[in-house]
């Protein structure tokens, strides 16, 4: 699976808007994740996960920043996320199923905040992009 030129263009242009609300989007994505899929909280026993928590905000920012890195190197996502890929494989070891859940919550957040931009084509491009990001992050698992 690789992104077409059109899909890349959609993602890069939407990223311009998304990045202006990056931190809020990161926080909201995680809130959605923990509420809809409480089992994902098992990866954060060391965090205060209440709404408004500084840790939640910091982690949300990290996640969205990483997505941003992938967008900026959209022609070489594996290269851009190599370090994170190793981190997830050897240290974090988050079960692969959770990447789909996080991706879904990010899409929901983006759809709610940018409804006009979130056309069917944009949705398809983002879904595809996030699944590529997810496979890069899990490719060293075994």
């Amino acid at each position, binding site marked *: 699976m690789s992104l077409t030129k059109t899909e890349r263009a959609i993602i890069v242009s939407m990223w311009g808007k998304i990045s202006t609300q990056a931190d809020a989007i990161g926080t*909201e994505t995680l*809130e*959605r994740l923990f*509420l*809809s*899929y409480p089992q994902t909280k098992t990866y954060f026993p060391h965090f205060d996960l209440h709404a408004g928590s500084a840790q939640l905000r910091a982690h949300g920012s990290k996640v969205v920043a990483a997505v941003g890195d992938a967008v900026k190197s959209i022609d070489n996502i594996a290269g851009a996320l190599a370090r994170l890929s190793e981190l997830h494989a050897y240290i974090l070891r988050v079960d692969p199923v959770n990447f789909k859940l996080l991706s*879904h*919550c990010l*899409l*929901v*957040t983006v*759809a*709610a*905040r940018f*409804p006009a931009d*979130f056309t*069917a*084509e944009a*949705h*398809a491009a983002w*879904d595809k992009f996030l699944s590529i990001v997810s496979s890069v992050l899990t490719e060293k698992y075994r």
Partner: protein
Amino acid sequence: MALLGERKRKDLSFLQFTRLLVVYPWTQRFFDNFGNLSSASAIMGNPKVKAHGKKVLTSLGEAIKNMDDLKGTFAHLSELHCDRLHVDPENFKLLGNELVIVLAKYFGKEFTPQVQAAWQKMVAGVSIALAHKYH
């Protein structure tokens, strides 16, 4: 659940179903007789897709009225999807998540994390009910 009562309901059925066929093109395999599905705009303009979307949303309306007995409500449809339509239940999950995303797009801020969580439970329940009679 009050969200469904709003007038946007008519548009949602169409959009949710359309999106499934655009975002996950392999789901088109069930709709060979629907005519032109060759592009996103062809799919959006296809009257058969629209009609089918309405059917699906009507079923979801039934689900909401019968939240305490989803398996009973969908028993017949489950058999149909297994025996006649041969639909992999994975597709019910895809459709459920599409609906959640369309709701987010249309209700924006109102579609809070708490509202989303309730809907995720709902669509998960519907998916399980639709798969329940598979054999």
